[in-house]
């Protein structure tokens, strides 16, 4: 049986073409345009060398803050989603009543449109009329009431908290599947040997979950670096760019016609993520997928 005849290459051409034209080529073109002064205000485009990159890394126009915010968002949400996801996964994997109910409820926010979630939380976190502050006041903790999305000091924390609320159930679900794939006999043997719950977690669950944890971390990092909807709905980068991330900044540069700046920031992200992606693809394709 001749493979090239039975499995013709043109079966794959539709996918490859659409993906290449609308995803890869704009990314690569973008790197090229980062070396120009492309903008909405001039028909001509000139080569300017590394000037755009110099602008970014010299700290002009808050660019470094956008990059810093994006990295901070990615770090904090990845760590907290992983830690909390693991905690919930351990609690909900075995021996608990109503486990399917809890799992379903916790997972639900991650399938809802992020934008709708964000809009609802702008009401909940409203300083004067919001549900959260009203609740705090009602139980006598009015001192803890904050201007959640308005106070420059805590706005970004609030955005990250809402995103963790939204995304932790998804990470938990992946980790539950990972825990349930660990053969019961390990836990039984450990229990007979007198291992307590912490020891069983530390020496069985955690090592056996290494692969799944690696995947969840990669997924969180990819999501975090590309975050847009949540920030756009909650604060749109404000107050005073305090919560601006890369994609919201690019959107604003686009609407101001600053194409070269926008494409430079996008290209920095592109190059960075292709490098991460290389490792991710290695992790994901290491062995055959078993469902």
């Amino acid at each position, binding site marked *: *049986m001749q*493979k090239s005849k*039975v*499995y*013709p*290459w043109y*079966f*794959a051409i*539709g*996918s*490859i073409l*659409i*993906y290449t034209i*609308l*995803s890869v080529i*704009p*990314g690569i073109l973008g790197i090229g*345009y980062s070396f120009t002064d492309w903008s909405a205000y001039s028909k001509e485009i000139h080569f300017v060398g590394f000037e755009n990159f110099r602008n970014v890394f010299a700290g002009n126009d808050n660019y470094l803050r956008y990059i810093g915010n994006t990295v901070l968002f990615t770090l904090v949400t990845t760590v907290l989603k992983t830690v909390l996801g693991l905690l*919930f996964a351990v609690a909900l994997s075995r*021996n608990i*009543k109503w*486990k399917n109910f*809890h799992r379903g409820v*916790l997972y*639900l926010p991650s*399938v*809802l*449109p992020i*934008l*709708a979630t964000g*809009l*609802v939380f702008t*009401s909940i976190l409203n300083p004067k*009329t*919001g*549900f959260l502050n009203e609740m705090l006041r009602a139980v006598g903790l009015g001192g803890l009431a904050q201007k959640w999305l308005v106070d420059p000091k805590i706005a970004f924390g609030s955005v990250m908290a809402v995103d963790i609320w939204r995304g932790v*159930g998804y990470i938990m*679900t*992946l980790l539950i599947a*990972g825990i349930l*794939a660990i053969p019961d006999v390990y836990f039984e043997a450990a229990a007979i040997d007198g291992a307590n719950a912490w020891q069983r977690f530390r020496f069985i669950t955690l090592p056996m979950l290494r*692969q799944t944890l690696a*995947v*969840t971390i990669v*997924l969180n990092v990819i999501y975090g*670096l590309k975050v*847009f*909807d949540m920030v756009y709905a909650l604060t749109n980068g404000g107050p005073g760019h305090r919560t601006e991330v890369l*994609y919201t900044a690019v*959107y604003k*540069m686009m609407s101001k016609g600053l*194409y070269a700046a926008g494409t430079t920031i*996008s290209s920095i992200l592109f190059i960075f*993520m*292709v490098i*991460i*992606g290389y490792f991710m693809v290695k992790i994901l394709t290491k062995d055959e*997928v*078993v*469902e």
Partner: protein
Amino acid sequence: MVYTAKNKAIQVILKNILAWFASLLVLIPMALVVLNAFKADGETLNMSLSLPKQWIVSNFSTVIEKGKLPTSFLNSMLYAGAGMVITILFGSMAAYIFSRRRSKGMSLVYMYVVLGMVIPVNYVTLTHTMQTLKLTNTAVGIILLYVAMQTPFTVFLIYGFVSKIPVELDEAAILDGCNPFQLYWRVVFPMLKSAVVTAGVLCFLNCWNEFMMPLYFLHSSTKWPMTLAIYNFFGQYEMKWNLICADVLLTCAPVVVIYLLGQKYIVGGQTAGAVKG
């Protein structure tokens, strides 16, 4: 022994407290949306968990009319539906070829496609590309963008399943006189049913929830999908939380229905890539 039994009881209690606390934290905002969607205009200045004084079902018809929801619902259906069908059609065929051929070159092409799960979109140059192709502000443009975005994960997901279909089946079909198309559509594709349903459901949900592509590339309001429509509705009726909540409910309803019907496939598909036995 007494000590461990007591210990275990404490663990069970702690686990239950944690589980209920977390579930309540998720359910309260959702209950807020549901309850406030039925309240009267003046009642939702503070969104609270109190029951509506009067259940005003007409909020929904108001929103449907003022938010032009029928149009945006049909738009969302079209974008997510067509995006899903094309992604699955091309993506499953590509995954099949990559999985069956396994030559060095083909593996590289597979890697190249899967890398798309990571690489970020450069919206600046994508706008340029879309304008050049005359795809800006068109339904075809949005659908093709969704296909481009969803293809990598779809190929990745289905690839794993193809390798579990025995090659002997292909050989037998060829001996029986199948051509490559018949082999794929009549023999292999039907066996990929569960993978295709999983990939399809996820693809549909992702397209339905997507917001950035329409924000960048659809300028006329008659072409907006639900997510963009709700955002603009929010801009116009900022204080009318009863109407916004009703709109949020209507936007989320299809997703929740699909989630409840296809929970097995959604969770199965999302964990398939992450968990290895």
